[in-house]
């Protein structure tokens, strides 16, 4: 059984700005280090308040009870939605036996990634879903 080795990691936040709504795509907050399109992503993990109560930018992370209401879409630099509407519950380590979700390494296009709510009940305005992106840089 294989599991993750961390080479680099960054916390990425997707914030529910405005009144949380099920029909809206919520993009990632600015993250200069990950927006250069030279990031080879190979693993991802999601945090709710059970793992991280607030992010480094001071935003409140969504309650653990709301984790089944969020899906995430990840897009690479070829505009390929290689993870589409993936439930974040499957990305929370404690919910999947301690494993971090790994995938074929690829160049991530953070600007095009987004999360959506399948149900906005209980989710407060400006709360965030936080992910840890595990990656290496091109040429490393």
């Amino acid at each position, binding site marked *: 059984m294989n599991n993750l080795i961390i080479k680099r990691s960054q916390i990425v936040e997707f914030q529910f700005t405005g009144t949380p709504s099920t029909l809206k795509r919520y993009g990632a907050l600015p993250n200069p280090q990950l927006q250069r399109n030279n990031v080879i992503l190979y693993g991802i993990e999601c945090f709710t308040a059970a793992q991280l109560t607030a992010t480094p930018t001071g935003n409140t992370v969504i309650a653990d009870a709301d984790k089944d209401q969020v899906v995430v879409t990840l897009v690479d630099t070829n505009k390929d939605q290689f993870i589409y509407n993936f439930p974040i519950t499957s990305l929370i380590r*404690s919910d999947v036996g301690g494993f971090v979700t790994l995938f074929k390494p690829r160049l991530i296009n953070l600007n095009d990634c987004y999360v959506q709510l399948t149900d906005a009940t209980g989710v407060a305005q400006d709360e965030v879903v936080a992910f840890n992106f595990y990656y290496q840089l091109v040429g490393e």
Partner: protein
Amino acid sequence: MAKKQLVSPLIEYMSSEEMITDITSPISDSVKQVQLTFATSGIYGLQIWKPYYFNPDATLNGSSIKGIQALTRTEVDPLPDGSQTLTSADVYAKLLLWLVDSGGDVVATLPLSELIASTSNTIGTAFPKVQRFSLEDIIWQKCYVTIHDTVGITAGESLLFNIYYDKEEK
């Protein structure tokens, strides 16, 4: 005839790039304990978003960091100096560990809740619950911990880490 193990090219690639490892594989050739103790005032006084820097560590600087594990009262109580770790495992979700390299870049940021030996990895109880890393250029005194909510943390309580490392080859 000896059995040949089949390994997918993707697994082989990710293993050779040190992105993944078999959870049963050896972690490192050495391990060291590092402690941070919170105080009522001064550089370790409790305050939100303040960086609590680690002490310089000549052993860890220049070594290859292979794993980090946060210890709680489940693993050791009290600590060798008589203090205790934070009261509750829930409190670790209020702390972040920042790992910084010699160039001043933050290489990794992790909630301490993900590093707790007793809860972060639940993969089979027979395996060491250690988050693996592959970090070559970490300068220990540049690394720090932040707290974003001090409720539940008391002055005098400590953070204790097991740092798994391979010594620098001279």
